[in-house]
Each structure stands twice: as C-alpha cells, then as structure tokens.
C-alpha cells in the first residue's frame, strides 16, 4: 500500500504522466490539466491490443464535464483503437480509486479487455473549472499527457491464451461433367474441430503418428511412421482409411454422377469421392489399358451412337453365316 504521502506528493508533480513542459505553456495549453487532479494511474494492455512498448503509449485523450461529473478518457496509440473511461462526481472525495476496462476485440477467443486500468484522483475542482472554461470538453493530443511507461504492463505476445484445432478441407473429386470446369481452385477452407481450447492440453498419438517429448529441451517432436501410434480399428476400416472431419461428412459423401431420368444419383463410398477399384472395369476379355479397341472383324460392323452413347455391333447384311468348318 502506498504511503499516505505518496498521493500528496503526486498532487504537485506530473506523475503519473511523463513531464511535458509544453503543458505549462499557456500558449500551447490554455487549459492544462492541474497536477492535483490525477495522482496515480496504472494500465494493463491486453493480449489483443497490438501494443508496442517501443512506439506506443497510453495517454489522456479527453476530459469531459457533464452534469456535475468529470469523465476521463484514456486511449492507446497502438493500431487497435480502444479506450478506457473513468468517471468522477464533481464532489468526489480525494484519493478515490476506480477500476475500469475497455471492451474486448472481435477475435473469437478473446475474453480479456483490450485495456484495463485504475485511476486515483486528488482534488478535481480545478479540473472541472478548466473543463467548463473550455466549453465542457478538453481534447489533448497523444503527446500531452502520456502515462509513465512504468505504469503500463503490456501483455502483448506475453502468453499463449488458447489453442484452436482444425483441418484443411479434404481434396475431393468433383462430379463428372461434360463441360470443362475452368474456375481456378479455391483456397482450402479450414474445418474447425475445436476452438479456443484453454487449460491443460495433451497430445495423443493417432494412426501412424509418433509423438516424442523431450523435456530437457522443452520439445515435442511429431513424426509420421507407418504402424506407429493407434492401431487400425473398425472406425478406420469403416471409412476406408479416411477420417471424417465432420459428422455430416459421413452422410454427404461426394456425388459420382447426378440423378437422371434413368437412374438415381450415385455417391462415392469414400469421403474424398471417386470410384472404388472394385467398381471399375479394368480389362475386357483380358485386354487392359486406358483404351481397349473393339475391332469389327469379318462380317461385323462396329459403330458408335453419340445420341445414345452406345456401341453398336451388327452383322453386315451381305454376310452369309456359316456354321461348322466355315
């Protein structure tokens, strides 16, 4: 606890602000803030504030007198704009301490304020008079009343707050189409599995994964090794070696071809889509490759109907079939 004389001393010096002789110059500051108004203050800059100790500062930005109240607004010069507001009644007693905080930022995992702090005021009558004389509002530039750096605790980049876990969306085969798809590939989206996990976190080896902890050097080493970690189980076999990223993925597997009048749509049994090897014709009468020619031999004409997407095999009209020895 501060000595009783500490606040008394501060009524006669710039503390908790950095001394700025321009504030004593009536030409520059016609309505200066009396030293006795604020006798102590301290601020904690949150993790999300992007506050740089080397270049940023907390400063008194505005003093507002309204309805016998005095409102102090402190701001930061960092790129994230935020503000802490303190309020005093015009007849508030000396050494009144108030704690206040700004809002949080828009990040998903943010729970802490961007800026929080306390303010201890001394005699505020002179400040109210100065504010009224200035029309009720006193605006100060960012270099006028700057809080002592020692009174600012910066938590930027100071700790690891949360861990979010997700995976890039899997690569899937689009349905076959007669029209060539010319749209450029999109950036893969992240499918979140868990967000803003806090508290103790453990890593667990899954399929083909090996995790080594080296306590001496505070290292975790993740290695892919066939057969390491969890053994293949029914869950892996059921999904043909793939791991669903969402529960919906199991019921909305990629479409192989759309439904037509003749047949219903066909969905892949794989999460990444495509055909199963067992569903495809690899050889015809033992002939394989990417293309198998059907050759019309003697008395046979082989054609193709583009309309029906069909191969036609017909015997030539002038052929004379001969049984036996030909």
């Amino acid at each position, binding site marked *: 606890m501060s000595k009783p004389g500490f606040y008394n001393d501060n009524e006669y010096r710039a503390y908790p602000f950095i001394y700025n002789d321009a504030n004593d110059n009536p030409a520059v500051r016609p309505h200066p803030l009396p030293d006795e108004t604020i006798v102590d203050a301290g601020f904690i800059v949150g993790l999300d504030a992007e506050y740089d100790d080397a270049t940023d500062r907390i400063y008194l930005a505005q003093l507002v007198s309204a309805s016998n109240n005095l409102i102090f607004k402190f701001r930061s010069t960092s790129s994230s704009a935020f503000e802490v507001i303190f309020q005093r009644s015009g007849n508030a007693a000396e050494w009144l301490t108030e704690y206040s905080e700004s809002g949080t930022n828009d990040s998903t995992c943010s729970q802490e304020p961007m800026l929080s702090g306390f303010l201890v005021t001394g005699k505020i009558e002179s400040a109210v008079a100065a504010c009224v004389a200035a029309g009720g509002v006193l605006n100060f530039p960012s270099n006028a009343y700057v809080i002592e750096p020692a009174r600012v605790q910066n938590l930027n980049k100071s*700790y690891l707050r949360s861990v979010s876990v997700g995976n*890039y969306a899997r690569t899937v085969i689009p349905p076959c189409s007669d029209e060539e798809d010319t749209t450029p590939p999109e950036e893969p989206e992240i499918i979140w599995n868990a967000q803003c996990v806090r508290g103790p976190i453990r890593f667990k080896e899954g399929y083909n994964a090996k995790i080594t902890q080296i306590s001496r050097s505070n290292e975790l080493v993740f290695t892919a090794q066939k057969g390491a970690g969890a053994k293949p189980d029914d869950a892996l076999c059921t999904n043909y070696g793939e791991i669903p990223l969402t529960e919906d993925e199991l019921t909305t597997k990629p479409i192989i071809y759309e439904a037509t009048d003749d047949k219903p749509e066909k969905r892949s049994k794989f999460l990444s889509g495509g055909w199963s090897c067992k569903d495809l014709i690899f050889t*015809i009468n033992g002939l394989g490759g990417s293309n198998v020619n059907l050759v*019309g031999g003697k008395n046979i004409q082989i054609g193709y109907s583009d309309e029906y997407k069909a191969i036609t095999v017909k015997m030539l009209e002038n052929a004379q079939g001969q049984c036996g020895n030909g």
Partner: protein
Amino acid sequence: MIFDRDRIVEITQWGIGTYVFTRAATEIVSTLFIPAQEPGVRALTVDGKEFITGDVCLVGADGVVLTEQDGVIRVDVVGVPLFQRAACDAAGKKKQPQRFVSTINDCGPDEFGNFTITATDLNIANNDTTVLRVYPSDFGLFIEAAGRSNI
C-alpha cells in the same frame, strides 16, 4: 528507463570505465517489479523460429488430421488419397476428373475387374454353334462372324 537530463551530466563526468555497484547502492525497489503469473505454456516455437503467442491455431494438412476431445489433441497421419489432385490444387492448376468405365449395359466387372464378352447365344441349347467370334488380339478385341461375305 528514464534519465534526468541534469543528473546524467554528472555521470558522464565520471570518465570512461566500468563502474560496479553494490546491491545496497542501486537495488531496484520492489514496486517496479510487476510479477506475471506463468502457470502454463507461454509460447510455441516451430523449429526454433519466432515465438507464437496469443490464440494459436493448429491445422492439419497434407494427410494429417487433428481432432480435439476433452483437451486431448489426437494426431492421425492417414495421407491424402488424391495426392495428385491436391498437388494440382496447391499449384493453382485445374485437374479434370478422370472418366472410368464402371458398367457396360449396366453390367459390372468380376471380382478381378475384368469384363468378359462371350460369343454365345443362351437361346440355343447347343450354343457352341454360334457364328459369332470374340477374341483378343494385339489390335484390340475382335468381334467377327464366321462365314463368307458377298463382298
């Protein structure tokens, strides 16, 4: 650290050299220490690169799947079945889906992926008398009818 403009002049007059102070002479008062609790992990580094703090995202990619349950992050390495397509996507190139033959006249292959076309007529009891011949050759699958042609 903030210096008094007048007092710092006195120090500059000490002359060049190293000056050692005792603890009693220049001990920092305790009010200037702001202890921060360090109950857990303060930062991550990957291969000794810069510290990662704040809200960290762990994202599985290229066949690594991460799942979280009750504070336990499971790491599975299952690979990417469509690795060629994934490589094309990563390179910003479009890869058209390949077309495969799965059925002919709604009939699929046997367990070995082979589709057999036979020259038989199930309507004839002794069906080895058909004139139709189907046989593979170096040029493809030949389909012909035995007999003479008037051409």
